[in-house]
């Protein structure tokens, strides 16, 4: 089981990870975007860090919804509504829980993904974060339903996210700012898919190692 503290630790670590990768994500957003993805994610998660103390004693669902709402109102761009929706839907999906089972994680991330797709209307292979989140959620579900340990399941999810992220490189973008480039979007890794990979990687590193 993943405790509320572990969820809080994940979010805090995620803030550090996005802070460290601010420049990297922004560089990825330069050739096929507008050079702000890392800056936006960092600004949003720093604000999340500020907000966390006020909701720490609430349930996990409320905490995640607060994260989502904070991201919506501080990130802006495409990342804000998408990651905002991701966390709000995640929070709504698990509601008032105080700890999460592996099955809860599957439910939660599936709901998050559904929210992203509903908001952004991207399909697989459009060269967006959906290309990292989708395989991650699938790998997680498969591993959990085949009885893998939480650690193993999260490790597989992170690996699938990474593969999905890398698979965006040869893709021609159909959604988001990169789509304006047409053919010239090919050959570049999608920044949003990369931040999504970092999200699953951090989940594995925070929750998987301990379990």
């Amino acid at each position, binding site marked *: 089981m993943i405790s509320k503290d572990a969820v809080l630790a994940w979010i805090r670590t995620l803030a550090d990870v996005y802070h460290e990768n601010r420049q990297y994500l*922004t560089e990825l957003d*330069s*050739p*096929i*975007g*507008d*050079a*702000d993805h890392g*800056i*936006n994610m960092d*600004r949003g998660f720093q604000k999340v860090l500020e907000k966390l103390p006020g909701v720490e004693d609430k349930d996990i669902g409320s905490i995640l919804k607060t994260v989502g709402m904070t991201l*919506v*109102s*501080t*990130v*802006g*761009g*495409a*990342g*804000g*509504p*998408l990651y905002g929706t991701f966390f709000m839907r995640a929070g709504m999906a698990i509601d008032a829980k105080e700890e999460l089972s592996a099955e809860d994680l599957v439910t939660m991330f599936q709901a998050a993904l559904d929210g992203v797709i509903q*908001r*952004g209307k991207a399909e697989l292979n459009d060269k967006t974060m959906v290309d990292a989140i989708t395989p991650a959620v699938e790998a997680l579900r498969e591993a959990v339903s085949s009885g893998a340990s939480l650690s193993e399941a999260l490790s597989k999810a992170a690996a699938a996210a990474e593969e999905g992220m890398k698979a965006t490189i040869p893709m021609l*973008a*159909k*959604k*988001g*700012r990169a*789509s*304006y*480039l*047409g053919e*010239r979007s090919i050959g570049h890794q999608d920044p949003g898919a990369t931040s999504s990979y970092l999200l699953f990687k951090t989940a594995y590193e925070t929750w998987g190692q301990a379990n």
Partner: protein
Amino acid sequence: MKKLINKPEDVVKEELEGIAKAHPDIVKVFFNPNYIVRADAPVQGKVGIVSGGGSGHEPMHGGFVGMGMLDAACPGEVFTSPTPDQMLEATKAVNGGAGVLHIVKNYTGDIMNFEMAAEMAQAEGIEVESVVIDDDVAVQDSLYTAGRRGVGTTVLAEKICGAAAEKGYDLKKVADLCRRVNANGRSMGMALTSCTVPMKGEPTFELAEDEMEIGIGIHGEPGRERMKIKPASEVVKLLAEPVIEDLPFKAGDEVLAFVNSMGGTPLIELYIVYNELAKICEARGLKIVRNLIGPYITSLEMAGVSITLLKMDDEMKELWDAPVKTPGLRWGV
């Protein structure tokens, strides 16, 4: 990075403070969330018009708030769409009971954030219509992609719809007019140099001393094609022809010609560009009946220009000429 700024993270805040101090007779500026409204908002019984987008395109949008144009603008971080809470507050602040029009440039972020704001405003009982501007012919249009970017036509739509709202058009009529302006406007831009996002601190792209980028966006997005620099006459042809052929504009059409600086290109060059554009329009039989020349929708300090043509009808001409009093555009009052 060479800019007249203090800390990169304070750029938007301090810019807004400057605007607040400079134009208290025209606008009120609110912080956290950030938005700019007409000093006399809400105007009772008038359709409110709200626009917004990333900062770095000044005077758009904040500089177009005032009588005869926008009721409110929501400035995001530099090149980053603003957030729904800004838009919601702005929408509430300008709602004079006749509903509010959101003029949204077609960027995924802007679309999604405005969509969330519209949902929230509607939940609070405010009638909201949204019109998306997507006039950039440099981008291939398609149902399966994000479509075209919104660029120069936005400025023209804001002026024309602002005048219509001032005249008492109802929400549906203002929104329909806005769609008509969008349907009749086409733009394309180019860059001689990159811009530098303050928080990034380095140019978004690199162009050699003899290179230019054609079909650039207003956020330093790469364009259609990179090529050797050419004389203004050829550059203008590269921009104007796709614009003209896209609508298509036809001999006899009356047009507004808008020559826009991307921020770093001075007026002396804009007039040379206008001169070339006027020649092309004349050769094609297009009649330039109005024009706008200057830095109105910029991309920070990027050197370059964009060209917008808008096919005008009598109603649009009349609304274009109507009085406007904003920090960035003013006449008749």
